[in-house]
């Protein structure tokens, strides 16, 4: 069986950049991604959507169109790219014959397979931060990211006017894209705290290094104002009401309670790194107060606390696509160094430019983090927290108070986080409720143990491992 030098999980900006750079050093590279085509989140569907005659390319914007060039270089790089490939487990090889190596379990078209590689690069990106509120599980409520995925992968616009509620660059971008493509927006409920100036000012100077991004963001906001769109600021205590479907939304502003009829509500409260793979591999993680999320602890080369396992892109901390490209390039240097094809001295030289690009790409991040903090409002006892097991905040609080401040204990006691989502939807909320019950810093609570698989796999697929299809 072929042993690759490097297996990359994720063909977004970080994974594609790393693949191109590693191929330039003649290393054998396999790239696994569950999407049908390269691009990752930002550039999902970029090859198809940028074909001549596609109306989407214009509406999705210039930054989106740039992805086509990166995808083209990636296709030409000679990396063994495997789309529609879901990675559901990563293990360190037990075989002694391999000095150091990894096994990646992946399913493609119902056939499971183990891919072996000497190094792993996780370029698996981010996920939207789940924020429970009354009614968030009601049909008609979805995330901005999910709506944007429909837009990029099939050109689908939501039916009827939508309400957008949340904070961060993504809702602004999506609102902008939607308007350009002829979608209807009923209103924009901004949940960012109103004291923008006080929060943002200390970070403004640094952020000016990335004035292009700032100008872009200001442009989206100005566009929204000019369009006469209804906009509410200082929004808290959102509720999605109705029966089987969303009918009405209700919210609070400093001026009082308001409500409106609603058919579709799109929510978004920022991104968090997708840390399930590194958590399940028991890498060390650190808590970021600014981003209210965990991230794997990395050395300057992008290597985790488990040697041979690297992380790049938003999976290493939310910094956006430009930074993801830079992190991909740096991880490629780190991996080449660790495989011995690049001396330490050359590697240090090679990374100077990458470091500079990364620091520039990150310049506006402290400003963004301060403008769009994770929501801190109290979660009502009746609000569902764990969707898989249908557990409320009240039930989790009660369990949290009954014993030690340990997410695994609360999980064992309540089953919260044991369902198909493995805590992707509830893990942070549960940890927050535990911290609250024990009056301790969120950073000290940790996260529950992650049990495989990382992605859904059927028993039939599991059984097909190692057997080639008839």
């Amino acid at each position, binding site marked *: 069986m072929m042993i690759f030098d490097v297996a990359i999980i994720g063909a977004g900006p970080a994974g594609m950049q790393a693949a191109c750079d590693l191929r330039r050093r003649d290393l054998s590279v396999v790239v696994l991604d569950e999407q049908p085509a390269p691009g990752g989140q930002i550039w999902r569907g970029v090859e198809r959507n940028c074909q001549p005659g596609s109306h989407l390319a214009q509406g999705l914007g210039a930054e989106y169109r740039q992805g086509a060039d990166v995808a083209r270089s990636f296709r030409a790089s000679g990396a063994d790219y495997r789309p529609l490939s879901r990675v559901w487990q990563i293990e360190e090889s037990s075989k002694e014959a391999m000095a150091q190596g990894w096994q990646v379990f992946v399913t493609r078209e119902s056939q499971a397979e183990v891919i072996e590689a000497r190094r792993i690069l996780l370029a698996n990106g981010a996920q939207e931060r789940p924020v429970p509120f009354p009614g968030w599980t009601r049909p008609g409520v979805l995330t901005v990211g999910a709506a944007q995925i429909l837009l990029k992968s099939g050109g689908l616009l939501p039916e009827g006017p939508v309400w957008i509620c949340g904070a961060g660059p993504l809702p602004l971008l999506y609102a902008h894209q939607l308007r350009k493509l002829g979608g209807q927006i009923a209103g924009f409920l901004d949940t960012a705290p109103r004291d923008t100036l006080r929060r943002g000012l200390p970070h403004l100077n640094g952020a000016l290094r990335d004035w292009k991004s700032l100008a872009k963001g200001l442009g989206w906001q100005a566009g929204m104002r000019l369009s006469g769109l209804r906009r509410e600021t200082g929004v808290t205590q959102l509720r999605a009401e109705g029966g089987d479907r969303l009918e009405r939304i209700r919210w609070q502003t400093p001026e009082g309670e308001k409500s409106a009829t609603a058919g579709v509500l799109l929510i978004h409260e920022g991104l968090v790194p997708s840390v399930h793979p590194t958590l399940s591999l028991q890498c060390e993680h650190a808590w970021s107060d600014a981003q209210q999320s965990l991230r794997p602890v990395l050395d300057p080369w992008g290597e985790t606390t488990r040697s041979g396992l690297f992380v790049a892109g938003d999976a290493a901390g939310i910094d956006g696509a430009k930074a993801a490209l830079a992190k991909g390039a740096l991880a490629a240097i780190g991996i080449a160094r660790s495989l011995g094809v690049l001396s330490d001295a050359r590697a240090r030289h090679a990374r100077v430019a990458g470091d500079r690009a990364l620091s520039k790409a990150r310049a506006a991040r402290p400003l963004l983090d301060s403008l769009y903090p994770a929501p801190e409002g109290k979660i009502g006892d009746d609000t569902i927290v764990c969707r898989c097991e249908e557990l409320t905040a009240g039930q989790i609080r009660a369990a949290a108070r009954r014993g030690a401040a340990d997410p695994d204990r609360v999980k064992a006691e309540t089953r919260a986080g044991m369902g198909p989502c493995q805590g992707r939807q509830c893990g942070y909320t549960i940890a927050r409720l535990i911290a609250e019950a024990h009056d301790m810093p969120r950073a000290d609570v940790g996260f529950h143990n992650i049990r495989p698989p990382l992605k859904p796999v*059927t028993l039939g697929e599991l059984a097909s491992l190692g057997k080639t299809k008839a």
Partner: protein
Amino acid sequence: MRAGTDLIVIGGGLHGLSAALQSARRGLRVVLLEGAFTGRHASGATAAGVRSLNRAVEELPLSLEAQAQWEDMIALVGDDCGFHAGGQVQVAMDTEAEARIKARIARLEAAGMRHEQWIGPDRLTELVPVMQPGALGAAYVARDGSADPHRTIRAFRAACLDAGVEILENHPVTWLARDGSLWTVVAGGTTHVAPTVVNAAGAWGRQIAKLAGDPLDVGIKNSMMIVTERCEPCLGPVISAQNRKLSFKQTADGTFLIGGGVQGRLRPGGGSASVDFGALSGAMSTTLALFPWVADLRLVRAWAGMEAATADLLPVIGPSHRAPGLIHVFGFSGHGFQLVPSVGRVIADLAETGRTRTELSAFDPGRLATNRKAA
């Protein structure tokens, strides 16, 4: 330092909890020291099969006692622990398996034990209509079944607290020594003194034994489990197969639990176990041969649980020979869940009076004693 403690139990798995509970009920003042939280290891990872079927004869007296206790768990802990007597079935997939099962049932009957019975293919199909036809028959125990492990842990823990057991979680025992007639046990920065100590530390039982000056030759097992997405209820009994690694059952909430002793790996450092999907994949063939329709079900979680295992696969139950006042209760080798109520009774006997009516010679720690220097 706490004075006045009669018994220190090390380990808050089900065996530690059961021993603590039944000792406290007899008036002993009990402190239970748990390194993580109650049920963190084997007792929380278990398939929770309540099975007398295919037990080693040495374990049967305890197992049959436990069977009756499971039927009346409310009397012991105030909750039924989710026990459901759906039966246990051990399928014979070939003539050799059939011969083995029949020989076992004959041996049991000769010894006066009639809990297992042989059922033919027709009765088997009646009992398990969702199984592929073709099996030659099966051993069957109608009174067996399974329970809800987390509910069982919660119930034993609550009953312990009610009975006055002091439970200290996040208190790993790091040192213990005997001075005169008293043991001193250090755990998580606290010190405890008592005449009697119970070693119920599961996979770490051998470490405690060694610390106490009674090194025992006991290994580790890392059995794996799979749980699927939920389905309509369709399977009553727990299914195993003679000579194959299979344990298959549907839980009360509709998920299927698949295990059967396929082994995972010990993580570096030995503190926990991880799943070996290659091994799990190989073991899927028996499940799929009997239940081909599970191929389309989604695997929701897989895990491995650590437990001490002895060479003869019998537990270590009884007083230490070299460390007076220390009682071992660990090494259940992958099938200790069912025995929790009866073994707790035995440990309470020993803690209270130093004696028990139950024959323990097959479980004697002495059979596993290793040389102190070599250990």
